[in-house]
């Protein structure tokens, strides 16, 4: 089996060769990273003939708490640094200074006030950024993240090449060895490799918001990777020096498989569920079958679904132009709408000419015609669904905070929550809608992360955002969090 996997590696396209070439230069990168760590340098931007533009970022691995969490936190911190360089640091500064003095006879007084507010936001999608190892300097351990132009090109090429070759990603995972615990380091290195394999194909969404107002500072970083691991083989592993464990693995993440299955991507957004509505039982079954194959969670209960797949199928009689026999054609349209907002996510209609059936009686012809229609629309729907899911991962989707027991007394608190929500990485453009008569209020916003993350951040933010009347959280699903006052 290992041989088979290796033969696949030999056969993969030039994009993977580029990635391997980057790995071949790995020792130099680590030497560079070690120098950086010793000099207190966090990020370096440069250009080389081998890789094109590159960014190296190092982030200190914490020393207390769960090791896997510390390593992950350092990786996220390093990604935030790279994202800031590549996607840009959105910087806003405001300063106010006033000074006054007055004298009246023997009485004199002076006063001075100064305030400064600095806000920095980062929002980027990283592709081809790899953790290449860990380095030690000044009694601290740093994780090293490398992003190169060629790796990014390779990642994009892999991403866009659908279905040509079965795809395999070769990655190297590193983890620090702490207290001689090889087993833990091995597990952490393997997990790190898996994450990287996913990230190299789908990318990592990185959002960060830092604010500083005089001596108050807050920072939130969110990074998520969505993906799908099919097979995992270790090619080589072992200690690198005394402090690092290295695992070189081949992860079978076939490009076409990955693109076909949105399971992992949708899971990363939370438990996203679809419900199919269709008057024709046969068509309904076929649609459910197709969406389930693509990794969508299809539910029978409309109330638990975030998205409705509305199918409309009808049959029309036709006459064969040559022999005059009776035929049937199927007119099939499929729409996906956000159940809460009614927003149309995608729409597709079949080419009815390709669904005509002339064989058998009316029942058989309808069945054949529906099958042809589904087969014909399958590719279109898949393409549009691909676009929709990628859009949800990359640029966000509509999400809501819903409040009941609302009254006008809570209006200021609702606004404060909306303002706080805007500061959560991955959440933007909140719009409030309140109906005091019905006792309900909603904040609709664009969301790039899963709702579990949002609600956790929200709890922190509500505590610190000066919300006079704090609502209680009573539930959440993939696209909404419910509160009550």
């Amino acid at each position, binding site marked *: 089996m290992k041989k088979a996997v290796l033969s696949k590696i030999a056969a993969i396209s030039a994009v993977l060769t580029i990635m391997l070439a980057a790995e071949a230069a790995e020792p130099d990168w680590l030497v560079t990273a070690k120098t950086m760590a010793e000099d207190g*340098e966090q990020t370096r931007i440069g250009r080389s003939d081998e890789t094109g533009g590159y960014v190296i970022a190092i982030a200190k691995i914490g020393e207390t708490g769960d090791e896997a969490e510390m390593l992950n936190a350092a990786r996220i911190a390093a990604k935030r640094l790279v994202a800031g360089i*590549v996607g840009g640091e959105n910087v806003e500064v405001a300063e106010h200074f006033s000074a*006054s003095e007055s004298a009246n006879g023997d009485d004199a007084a002076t006063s001075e006030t100064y305030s400064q507010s600095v806000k920095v936001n980062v929002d980027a999608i990283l*592709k081809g950024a790899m953790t290449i190892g860990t380095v030690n300097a000044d009694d601290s351990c740093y994780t090293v993240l490398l992003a190169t*132009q060629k790796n990014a090109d390779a990642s994009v090429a892999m991403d866009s090449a659908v279905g040509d070759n079965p795809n395999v990603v070769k990655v190297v995972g590193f983890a620090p060895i702490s207290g001689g615990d090889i087993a833990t380091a091995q597990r952490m290195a393997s997990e790190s490799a898996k994450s990287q394999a996913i990230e190299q194909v789908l990318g990592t969404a990185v959002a960060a918001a830092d604010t*500083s107002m005089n001596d108050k500072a807050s920072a939130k970083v969110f990074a998520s990777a969505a993906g799908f691991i099919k097979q995992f083989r270790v090619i080589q592993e072992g200690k690198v020096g005394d402090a690092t464990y290295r695992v070189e693995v081949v992860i079978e993440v076939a490009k076409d498989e990955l693109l076909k299955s949105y399971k992992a991507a949708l899971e990363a957004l939370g438990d996203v569920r679809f419900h199919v509505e269709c008057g024709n039982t046969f068509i309904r079954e076929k649609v459910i079958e197709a969406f389930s194959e693509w990794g969508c969670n299809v539910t029978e209960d409309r109330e638990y679904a975030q998205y409705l797949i509305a199918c409309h199928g009808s049959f029309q009689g036709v006459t064969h132009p040559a022999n005059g026999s009776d035929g049937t054609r199927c007119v099939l349209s499929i729409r996906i709408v956000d159940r809460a907002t009614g927003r149309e996510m995608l729409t597709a209609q079949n080419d009815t000419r390709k669904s005509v059936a002339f064989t058998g009686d009316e029942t058989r012809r309808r069945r054949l015609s529906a099958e042809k229609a589904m087969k014909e629309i399958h590719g279109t729907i898949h393409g549009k669904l691909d676009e929709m899911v990628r859009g949800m991962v990359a640029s966000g989707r509509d999400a809501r905070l819903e409040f009941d027991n609302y009254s006008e007394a809570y209006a200021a608190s609702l606004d404060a929550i909306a303002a706080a929500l805007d500061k959560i990485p991955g959440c933007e453009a909140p719009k409030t809608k309140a109906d005091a008569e019905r006792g309900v209020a909603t904040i609709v916003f664009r969301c790039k992360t899963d709702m579990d993350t949002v609600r956790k951040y929200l709890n922190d933010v509500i505590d610190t955002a000066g919300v006079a009347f704090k609502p209680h959280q009573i539930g959440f699903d993939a696209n909404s969090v419910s509160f009550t006052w």
Partner: protein
Amino acid sequence: MNYPRTLLAAVVAATTFCAAYAQEATPEDVVATEAAVESKSVHDMVDEYLNAKGYSEGENTKGGKPFYVAVGYGVIQAPLENRSYIDSRVNAYNKAMLDAKAKMAEYLEVAIRTETEHDYAEGNFGGNEEAEADSLSITSKIKSLINAKLDKALREEGLDPDKAEREARERIAKKQLNSDFYKKVISTAAKAEITGMQVMCAFEGVPAGGKGQIGVVAIWSPKLQAMAQSISRGTRLPSGVGKKPVKEQIPSDNKVLLSTFGVQQKIDENGDLVLVAFGQAGAVTDSPQSANAARNKAKMQAMAAIREFAGESVAVTSDAVNAENVEEFENAAEEYEDVSAYSQKIKAAAEKMNITGIATIKNWDCKHPLAARTVYGAICTWSPKQAINAKDMSNAMNGAGTPQPQPVVNTTDGIQNRGADGDEDAF
């Protein structure tokens, strides 16, 4: 206790004085050789620096090309013992820079309003009861009615209710010979978009037992302006003669870095212009989380400096009132009263700007010699080349391919990087 503190202050002042010069030469060497210089005020240090350079506040020329020098000062308001002392130093630098920018804004265009009043009077012109009567409000009319009823009641009892007031008025009228009142109001307002202003050098001085100050000598030139526009427009700038790598131009002594703030333009080994931004912050507590937050704040200060260099709107308004009143009396007595007030408000705002390619080339920390608190520092760089590399990568990640290079912009002043002094070549 006083003596060591004085000595320490002298060393700090000397260190920082040298640090300022050090930005242009090799700072460490200067610190080592001039550490015995006695304590000077920040104003003295700035004056000496300007004299040594042959610069003056306002417009200057170098090789026939104009540049503008502005000086600003900010007071470190927090006491040495306060936990926010380090951040207060940063605030003092920011205030000093604001002061310098405000001066630049006023140099570009300022609206000035003055109002002068001089009243001289001899003798007494009597009361102005009629005018008072005209201005009676309903409330005062009610009061007057009540008073009138009370006065009437007093008169019925044989008492004169106006006696005391009349006597006082007569006494004053009799004694006062003349009065001289003078008042002058000056108001100024200026608003300008300041782009491409960098710190030429910063000075920090903390006198024994007194409040410290930070002074900055800021500079603007067409070349700096071109660099600032490069941040917002993504234009490339021509290369000149290379120097040492930027990392080697940065002082390695943390004590020198202590008094280094803001943005400085330097020339790297390839002859490309690079902005180097220095940020500092203090930790609120001694915890590792607080230290991390301080490092982050320091980096934000550095990024804010780059953002401000790219251009910000600065508005400054100042009002000053000076008034005095002298009254002479019969017995040769004289009463003098003065009233004066001054206020200045400066607002600076740099709206959101997405800047790609900012790298953090150094994080440092050290104990402040006086406050015994840790100062966390971050040094960031930005250059058109870094931005292009970052953009290329961003495009690669988005599948847009490598973009066509931007045309090189020839600035009107050109770049002749042949001088011996690194920083002077860079502006």
